């Protein structure tokens, strides 16, 4: 289900960085969130213990997925919730469309759900002539602009208030040039309030589904999931199957980690526990696979399914902060997206695991201890094994490996290389050499270390 982008991450990143002041602003804004996360983490002496527990609980869940899902379904049905299973995004969308048709509803609100982005639900329903209103403020902004979220927690983080002002002027009739955040937020509030009151069906995501209770928890800062679910007569909650946790008491670990990791808040403003439909309401849960069981079967990559979508890895990632979310051409961008998306479509996303320096900061901030940077390395191996590397790169790497495997050839090549840099600098200092575009070449010394060693040390 991934989109076939006609650009690579590197190309999109170069375009993004061309506006350097805006890149600096984007970088600083997200770094500020990373710093808030650090402050929140350092305020809990037991932080590393919590991460370990979260990781262990999730591992347990991945190892016992079958039983947990069976238990969850049984308990949810007993609570009066209707449970649906979707093998992929298409089936997920069709299930939702059928519920819409069966109930003949037209006014639909949706709170933030990265799963529905992954399944391209909005496009699907729009094609069917069904209007769906995103109620998360950031998502509503990007929806107006016909864009996709650039960040899984802060969907409109790529936009400045001036951009929002223009968008609202066009779609909500706010004053032109009024960039006051208070004014703009109030306009959005009024607009969304009308949508909530009129809504007949509310779609939400799921942050945690609890196997032992058959209930689920949705976390928002805006209360929009609650507004939707409480006003509409039908509530559909969509979840990837990996959202399951065994027991309600485990929420005590995850809810403490989630918001601290995401934004540095002790907890999300709203952590709403749904367990059964109220009188006269329908409650549905759509449990989606969409490649997850394939990922579960990949030993090296299965632990990516521990992800709780906090986006801490986005905020710390030096590449993401300087390339923007849209450079990832996928619903879930950033480091976690770069290890999840090759599973969904390796060919379309073969550039993503390479868009990293493997610095390891992403793994360190991860509240469930996913070894993200190690998986990036492993995806690189998979992608070249599948023959998806560019021919030129494969040839260059082969040449390099041959030179480096043979000491005498290596020494000759090194000598030639140094000679070229010194005497024929135009061969390296030109537009064909990406290093030289914004960097000088290192100076070539007259002798290698080995030469020096032989002349001065080896007697």
């Amino acid at each position, binding site marked *: 289900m991934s989109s076939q982008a006609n650009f690579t991450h590197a190309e999109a990143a170069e375009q993004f960085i061309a506006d350097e002041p805006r890149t600096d602003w984007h970088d600083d804004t997200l770094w500020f969130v990373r710093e808030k996360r650090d402050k929140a983490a350092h305020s809990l002496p037991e932080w590393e213990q919590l991460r370990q527990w979260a990781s262990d609980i999730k591992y347990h869940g991945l190892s016992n997925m079958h039983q947990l899902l069976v238990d969850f379904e049984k308990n949810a049905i007993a609570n009066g919730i209707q449970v649906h299973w979707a093998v992929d995004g298409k089936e997920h969308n069709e299930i939702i469309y059928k519920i819409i048709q069966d109930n003949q509803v037209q006014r639909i609100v949706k709170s933030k759900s990265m799963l529905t982005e992954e399944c391209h639900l909005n496009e699907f329903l729009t094609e069917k002539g069904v209007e769906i209103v995103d109620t998360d403020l950031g998502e509503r902004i990007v929806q107006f602009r016909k864009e996709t979220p650039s960040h899984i927690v802060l969907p409109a983080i790529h936009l400045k208030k001036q951009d929002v002002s223009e968008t609202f002027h066009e779609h909500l009739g706010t004053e032109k040039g009024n960039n006051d955040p208070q004014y703009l937020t109030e306009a959005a509030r009024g607009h969304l309030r009308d949508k909530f009151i009129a809504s007949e069906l509310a779609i939400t995501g799921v942050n945690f589904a609890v196997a032992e209770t058959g209930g689920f928890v949705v976390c928002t800062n805006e209360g929009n999931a609650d507004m939707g679910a409480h006003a509409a007569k039908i509530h559909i909650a969509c979840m990837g199957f990996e959202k399951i946790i065994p027991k309600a008491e485990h929420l005590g670990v995850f809810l403490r980690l989630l918001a601290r990791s995401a934004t540095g808040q002790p907890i999300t403003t709203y952590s709403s526990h749904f367990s059964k439909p109220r009188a006269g309401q329908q409650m549905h849960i759509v449990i989606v696979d969409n490649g997850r069981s394939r990922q579960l079967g990949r030993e090296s990559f299965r632990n990516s399914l521990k992800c709780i979508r906090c986006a801490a890895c986005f905020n710390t990632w030096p590449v993401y902060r300087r390339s923007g979310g849209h450079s990832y051409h996928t619903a879930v961008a950033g480091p976690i997206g770069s290890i999840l998306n090759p599973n969904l479509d390796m060919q379309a996303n073969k550039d993503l695991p390479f868009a990293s320096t493997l610095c390891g*900061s992403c793994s360190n901030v991860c509240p469930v201890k996913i070894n993200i940077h190690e998986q990036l390395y492993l995806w690189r191996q998979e992608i070249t094994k599948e023959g998806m590397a560019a021919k030129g790169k494969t040839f260059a790497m082969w040449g390099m490996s041959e030179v480096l495997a043979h000491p005498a050839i290596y020494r000759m090549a090194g000598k030639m290389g140094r000679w070229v840099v010194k005497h024929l600098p135009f061969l390296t200092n030109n537009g064909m050499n990406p290093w030289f575009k914004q960097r000088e070449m290192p100076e070539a010394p007259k002798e*290698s270390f080995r030469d020096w*060693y032989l002349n001065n040390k080896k007697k």
Partner: protein
Amino acid sequence: MKVGLFIPCYIDQFYPNVGVASLELLEKLGCEVSFPLNQTCCGQPMANSGFEAMSKGCDKNFVKNFKGFDYIVAPSGSCVLHIKEHLHDEEDPVAADEIRSRVYELTEFLVDVLKVTSLQASFPFKVGLHTSCHGQRGLHLASMSELVAPAFSKPGTLLSMVKGIEVSRPKRVDECCGFGGTFCVFEEAVSVKMGKDRIGEHKDNEVDFITGVDTSCLMHLEGILKRQGSKIKTIHIAEILNSQL
């Protein structure tokens, strides 16, 4: 104590002074050092580009050169990490295992094995310490800003033993410089932007030099500094620890 000196390929070819300083420093500290003459590369450039299978020749050559030493020491966190995590040799698996457990980055070796508590070094300059990721997050040469854990820095500890030096750290104390191996050419725009941002923070500290444990990061930063016409120079930590200025 027999120490095999591993000088990564690009240091051998382009930064021989880093090798010289490492060798002299280890000898000053009483090690019996030899430089196996047929060494080349750890294989990381291929492996990190997804061509792990092509690094077998390098692995084999590495094992041949470094078998039998008590310790293998290199002035590079990144290459040492690669050896530690990925060195294999089907023909001589025991030797490869031994090497993986005996390979050390230079500052790690000085602090953890030699237990150096003082140095005869002086370097009267303002120096910004760049924390290289693979050494830090991979080899744990320093505490990491992301983790809730006590602060320490092996390179920092050694620099504090140098007379006359004034060490500063950038505002974002351990953000990556953007080198990243072949990343630096395949993601050129992001790579350079990351490097410029690191340099900017060192400039704010008015440093004379930027130092670190990895010449690769320093080479990348040096390339940008030179293009900018900056007076700031890069210098490997071995050269500072070995200097008598």
